[in-house]
């Protein structure tokens, strides 16, 4: 066989956002040889885009908060489809994970007493999100990065993994290429952690960048792991809608947390019109009460703008469909109005939401301290993903772990804002810890050379395809259009069946896309290679969405508007590769909640 550069690690971590970095730091703590593969440069992963904050029941602002309340909030937000054990671990451990960041140099905004300040966010009963203005993700990734570079981790920047390597049942490494010269790299490892983030690039309107093509989901699927609840894709209610070139860029929920309101073209605060049963007791019944809540009044209940993201997104779509939208097909998000309530509102907004001010000023010529923004839903996050053990984060493939957005279980049918940054810290650490333990307990595995040769051939195929083969960008754009149209916020049997057919057609075309030029930093070739991942995750989302014949959380079926399918009980959908290499789907019942969990949920109302 041809010889490729080979790197030997005890633990290989694929993905260098918050979860990957946190896993790497943990795995390196025992002196193991750890490799960290980043698709981009270090510190550029999407964690950097997280704005509002990291959820942790520190109880610095409201002493009534505790892990039990955070647990109950997460379970309710996820419509009780979450893995309860994960929700428990997450709620219990996130405070320590946040505090630890300050030991590594992070600096969160402070309370008057000098401890970490926390803000309100949708679905969280008390002010719970530790934050730095509206650039919390940057603070977190930088703290992890600046600490991580001193832990003896081998960082492989601008490398993409195209396949996991297995020896027998066990994962034994990964095959990738480096962007600069297009050379292949072989990584051998005793344990592998996937931390590749999301799948946003499967959709046309998204807050995600080019990297988020579902690599980890697809790598795990092809290696035999299970994907759970893939139908739950979060459409964040507030993305920019104008101008067209910035459509989809995120507008933080922090705007609403600071008192921002949603209105339609008639000036009506439409979120008051539809408050779901589960949340009636927790929601303000007047604008005044809602405002008081955002200003820290402990007796007030939260404004309906801070209901869960799935619900807010659906309400916005309803307003637009019924002809009450803004000029460019969104609704209005207004923070400027708070000048009626507080002095120095302009300065206050710029201090609390500096990057939102900057973003609208520079990209849309809008001064958010003076006029409302136009916003609409944008594909933001996938709750579904690689099925893992709650405690260890190991998949059903021995030695293969997953953490962060590409893993699943914590968020159920809908993720609460702020629970992603805490998810990646808590479960990134656990994945690193247990991957290290697995590596220590299990010996070397030899790589399978023939498999490597086969992968190498496939990876070079786009260069060898006939020159009249499709342009990879075109296939990607067609897929994004179809997913947006057919597997978006509103779905039906018909749209999903059609989506599956379209995906099949595009897969055939993808096999013959042609890459021009050579292997050096060739974006067209890279796009061609990402197509397989995008098609795999798109198919799994459509298939799972077809399987769930009900509307719950982020998944809405026009043909099944009710929350529960009759007689179906609560279940998770599981996608797994079948013996004949086709994509299989099945249901697994959600385990009954233990008495202890049920008590906490009942107690929290």
């Amino acid at each position, binding site marked *: 066989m041809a010889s490729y550069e080979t790197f030997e690690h005890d633990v290989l971590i694929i993905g260098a956002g918050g979860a990957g970095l946190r896993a790497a730091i943990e795995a390196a703590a025992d002196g193991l040889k750890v490799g960290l593969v980043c698709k*981009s*440069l270090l*510190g*550029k992963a*999407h964690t*950097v*885009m997280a704005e509002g904050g990291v959820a942790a029941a520190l109880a610095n602002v409201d002493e009534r908060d505790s892990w039990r309340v955070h647990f109950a909030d997460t379970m309710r937000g996820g419509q009780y489809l979450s893995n309860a054990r994960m929700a428990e671990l997450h709620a219990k451990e996130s405070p320590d994970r946040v*505090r*630890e960041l*300050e*030991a*590594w*140099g992070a*600096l969160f*905004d*402070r309370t008057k*007493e*000098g*401890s*970490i300040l926390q803000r309100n966010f949708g679905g969280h009963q008390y002010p719970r999100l530790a934050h*730095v203005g509206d650039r919390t993700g*940057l*603070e977190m990734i*930088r703290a992890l990065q*600046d*600490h991580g*570079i*001193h832990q003896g981790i081998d*960082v492989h*920047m601008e490398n993409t993994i195209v396949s996991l390597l297995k020896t027998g049942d066990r994962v034994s490494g990964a095959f990738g290429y480096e962007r*600069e010269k297009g050379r292949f790299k072989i990584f051998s490892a005793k344990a592998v952690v996937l931390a590749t983030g999301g799948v946003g690039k499967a959709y046309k309107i998204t807050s995600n*960048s*080019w*990297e988020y093509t579902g690599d980890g989901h697809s790598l795990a699927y092809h290696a035999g792991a299970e994907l759970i609840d893939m139908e739950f894709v979060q459409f964040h209610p507030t993305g920019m809608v*104008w*101008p*067209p*070139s*910035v459509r989809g*860029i*995120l507008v933080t929920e922090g705007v609403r947390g600071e008192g921002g309101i949603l209105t339609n073209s008639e000036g009506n605060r439409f979120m008051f019109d539809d408050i779901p049963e589960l949340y009636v007791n927790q929601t303000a019944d007047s604008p005044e009460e809602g405002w008081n809540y955002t200003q820290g009044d402990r007796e007030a209940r939260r404004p309906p703008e801070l209901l869960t993201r799935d619900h807010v997104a659906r309400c916005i779509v309803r307003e637009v469909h019924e002809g009450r939208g803004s000029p460019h097909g969104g609704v209005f998000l207004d923070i400027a109005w708070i000048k009626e309530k507080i002095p120095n509102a302009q300065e206050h907004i710029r201090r609390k939401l500096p*990057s939102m001010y900057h*973003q609208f000023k*520079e*990209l849309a010529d809008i001064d958010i301290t003076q006029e409302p923004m136009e916003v609409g839903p944008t594909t933001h996050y996938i709750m579904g993903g690689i099925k893992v053990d709650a405690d260890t984060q190991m998949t059903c493939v021995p030695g293969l772990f997953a953490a962060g957005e590409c893993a699943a279980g914590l968020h159920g049918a809908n993720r609460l804002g702020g629970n992603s940054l805490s998810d990646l810290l808590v479960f990134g650490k656990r994945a690193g810890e247990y991957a290290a333990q697995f590596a220590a307990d299990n010996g070397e595995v030899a790589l399978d050379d023939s498999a490597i040769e086969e992968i190498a051939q496939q990876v070079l195929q786009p260069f060898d395809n006939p020159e009249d083969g499709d*342009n*990879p*960008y075109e296939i990607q*754009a067609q897929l994004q259009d179809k997913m947006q149209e057919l597997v978006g916020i509103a779905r039906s049997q018909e749209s999903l069946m059609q989506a599956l057919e379209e995906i099949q057609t595009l897969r055939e075309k993808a096999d013959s896309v042609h*890459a*021009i*030029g*050579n292997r*050096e*930093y*060739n*974006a*067209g*070739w890279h*796009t061609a290679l990402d197509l397989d991942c995008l098609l795999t995750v798109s198919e799994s989302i459509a298939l799972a969405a077809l399987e769930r014949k009900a509307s719950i959380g982020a998944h809405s079926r026009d043909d099944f508007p009710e929350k529960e399918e009759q007689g179906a009980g609560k279940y998770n959908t599981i996608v797994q590769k079948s013996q004949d290499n086709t994509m299989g789907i099945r249901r697994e019942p959600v385990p009954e909640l233990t008495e202890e969990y049920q008590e906490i949920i009942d107690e929290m109302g």
Partner: protein
Amino acid sequence: MEKATFRIWRGDANEAQYVDYETEVSEGMVVLDAVHRIQAEQANDLAVRWNCKAGKCGSCSAEVNGNPKLLCMTRLNDLPLDQPVTVEPMRAFPIIKDLVTDVSWNFKVKEKMKPFTPRPPDEEDGTWRMEQEDIDHIQEFRKCIECFLCQDVCHVLREHDLHDEFIGPRFFVYAASLEMHPIDTENRLEELKNQDGIGYCNITKCCTKVCPEHITITDNAIIPLKERVVDQFYDPIKRLFRVFSS
């Protein structure tokens, strides 16, 4: 639809040229949108780094009409479109291909700097108490998105190529964020003076002007660090004190 011409630097370290591409432009577009459209329709193998497309990650640094800019935050309606828009890579770093440069030197520089070293926690739960007003200025430094445009524009690196003796504005900002951190206990002044070349900076403020995060690099980070270096190494009273105390 209106059209505009983009004169893009194409090639690698061995061979390169400007290539003109005409493409459609529409309201609100930024230079990165135009580069992407050209990449998708006319030049699939065009190399450009980008991620967030919202000025938050600092990946798409390049030079537009000769000015160091983030491609994602440079709007076409701020540029004269009656003439070609020149897009070329940063000039202070080795070229990889097209608009992509080898910025790995920056990562090596940071790794060599003394890491954050906090004093023991103030509280039993492992936390520290800090006043907001004591961290405001550090939070300004921590806004840095590591786009390295300040490094690109700095003449010490760009023209004099002193990458071995001078760490550049980005890492003075980093050093300042550590040195002024209320709970950090490390001292980095000797390195700043002897290895990091802070003396080479003659405060022309070019870095401050190009910073997309509007960090006042020179006034708030570099000058105070220079003052601390002077205080520690050149203050006659302190020197006398050191002679007697050693």
